[in-house]
């Protein structure tokens, strides 16, 4: 039913209809509204049977999920940012054990400096963990992706992380058409584990693997990711056929035909980018968008086909690898080879990505004035002043606080 609903509540409803049996909760902004809503459903009995466990840390949230999943229960949790990093050892472990846990990641920046706003640094920090990572463009897609995620995870025995932009999506109230219980039940069969802790059929799970087999075991895990490259579009197609809605898949092309310039991005910023691209298309410019839904596994072939031989590709990403540059861009570069590739780091820590800034970026790219790596709306002045302070004074102090102090000064003082 189509309703005007907060993103977090839409996710909670959607997850509840997937009949999770063990849900772990540890609060961190901006994920809190999701687990609060699920907790209320368990407490009032509308989500049953389900064990809702208020754990003492994110590390415990993922660990309890591991135990529950290994014992045959459908397990779900949600986190963000520092929380994901606090559980990172267990995140890798869940993937290594092949446990189909589903987790919502309400994408948020990582500190220091502490920052509660949206970017994709958290997701990037676990990109090599063996989890499937799907990025939602809208709350509608996020809600649908959770239903697909359980199906995908349990098909392949691989955990799936549904990434949705913190605040921008989690706290946005907009129209979402939620599947009802009967529809979800038709799409998502009960969980049939590949491995389970059962006294009737004892198995040892989690043994040490030495040099003689570790590479093969890891390769098998990689193959399951490659299997996901097939299963993700299949599941999305089945979903579309059943419910008449396009959600998920590997990539999302938009107005790519004859485009000489393509902007690549993930998550909710795609909406703003599409508006900007529409504006330019109306002015006759040949420009398009490629949204990446599946970041892990990374759809090299689909990206290669979608980007083909373009004059320029601009990757707009909400994270970067310090000392290197774009993370998504590196993967895109691997897919497309020699095309001129620009990385534009944008929206870090919740900085708004505006249509105006995006259009300026496109103009600079066309004029050959866009660097291979650049930062959208970067305040060069404040950086130059802090670099100067650091060069002249040894004890220049904490640089984050220096920048804030600098920005807080009256303008004439800055000059």
């Amino acid at each position, binding site marked *: 039913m189509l309703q*005007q609903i907060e993103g977090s509540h839409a996710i909670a409803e959607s997850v509840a209809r997937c009949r999770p049996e063990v849900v772990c909760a540890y609060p961190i*902004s901006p994920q809190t509204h999701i687990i609060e809503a699920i907790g209320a459903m368990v407490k009032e009995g509308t989500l049953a049977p389900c064990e809702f466990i208020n754990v003492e840390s994110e590390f415990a949230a993922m660990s309890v999920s591991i135990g529950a999943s290994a014992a045959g229960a459908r397990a779900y949790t949600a986190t963000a940012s520092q929380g994901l990093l606090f559980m990172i050892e267990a995140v890798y472990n869940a993937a290594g054990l092949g446990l189909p846990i589903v987790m919502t990641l309400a994408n948020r920046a990582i500190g220091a400096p502490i920052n*509660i706003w949206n970017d994709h640094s958290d997701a990037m920090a676990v990109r090599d963990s063996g989890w499937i990572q799907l990025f939602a463009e809208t709350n509608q897609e996020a809600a649908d992706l959770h239903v697909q995620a359980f199906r995908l995870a349990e098909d392949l025995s691989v955990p799936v992380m549904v990434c949705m932009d913190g605040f921008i999506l989690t706290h*946005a*109230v*907009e129209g979402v058409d939620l599947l009802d219980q009967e529809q979800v039940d038709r799409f998502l069969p009960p969980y049939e584990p590949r491995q389970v802790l059962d006294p009737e059929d004892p198995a040892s799970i989690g043994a040490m693997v030495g040099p003689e087999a570790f590479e093969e075991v890891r390769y098998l895990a990689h193959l399951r990711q490659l299997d996901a490259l097939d299963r993700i579009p299949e599941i999305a197609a089945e979903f579309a056929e059943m419910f008449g809605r396009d959600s998920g898949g590997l990539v999302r092309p938009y107005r790519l035909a004859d485009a000489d310039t393509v902007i690549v991005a993930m998550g909710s*910023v795609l909406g703003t980018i599409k508006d900007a691209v529409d504006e330019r298309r109306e002015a006759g410019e040949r420009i398009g968008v490629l949204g990446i839904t599946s970041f892990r596994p990374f759809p090299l072939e689909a990206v290669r086909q979608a980007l083909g031989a373009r004059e320029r590709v601009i990757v707009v990403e909400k994270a970067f690898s310090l000392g290197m540059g774009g993370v998504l861009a590196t993967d895109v570069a691997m897919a497309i080879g020699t095309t001129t590739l620009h990385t534009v780091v944008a929206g870090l820590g919740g900085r708004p*990505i*505006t*249509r105006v800034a995006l259009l300026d970026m496109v103009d600079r790219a066309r004029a050959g004035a866009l660097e291979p790596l650049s930062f959208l709306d970067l305040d060069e002045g404040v950086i130059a002043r802090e670099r100067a302070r650091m060069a002249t004074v040894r004890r220049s102090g904490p640089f984050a606080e220096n920048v804030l102090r600098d920005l807080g000064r009256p303008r004439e003082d800055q000059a």
Partner: protein
Amino acid sequence: MFQVRIHGRGGQGVVTAAELLAVAAFREGRHAQAFPSFGSERTGAPVVSYCRIDDREIRTREPINAPDAVVIQDVTLIHQVDLFSGLEESGYVLINTSRTFTELGLGELVERCRPDHLMTCPATELALEHVGRPVPNAALLGGFAALTGQVPIHAIGDALRDRFGPTIGERNLAAATAAFDHVRAQMEVVSGAAAD
């Protein structure tokens, strides 16, 4: 697309106001998107929320920099926060006050904007009278409906009942309706003056 920016302080229902507006628009079959300014604001701190209303899917996620309407829930924000940033000359302003724009030191705005787009409404008083609590958001939504015509008052009522249940919802609607009438009367005075 019609874009609204609501300014107030933590605890005044600023975020709720944007959500209610989005629900009201949705109930009228329109597309709507409400979102807060995403801070870790505490009670009393300046808060901003946003609402977009359109007849087609809303895709953009940028904050509202060029609002069609600005709603101000707390006059103490005036001259503290850049409340009217990006507001076009044709834009609407609704302020929770019983004073005039000029008395509030907003003479520049009066010169720049259309007089029938600048309205005030004693929303806190109306809330105290009808709801019993000094939360001006519902009343201001009534005033907003009168001022902009973007949503009908009955849709605001539906959203209020959805959110607060029949009893409290009805009281909030009474405040909203009173504000609607107040702003409507003010508009008639202004247009009457223009006709003279």
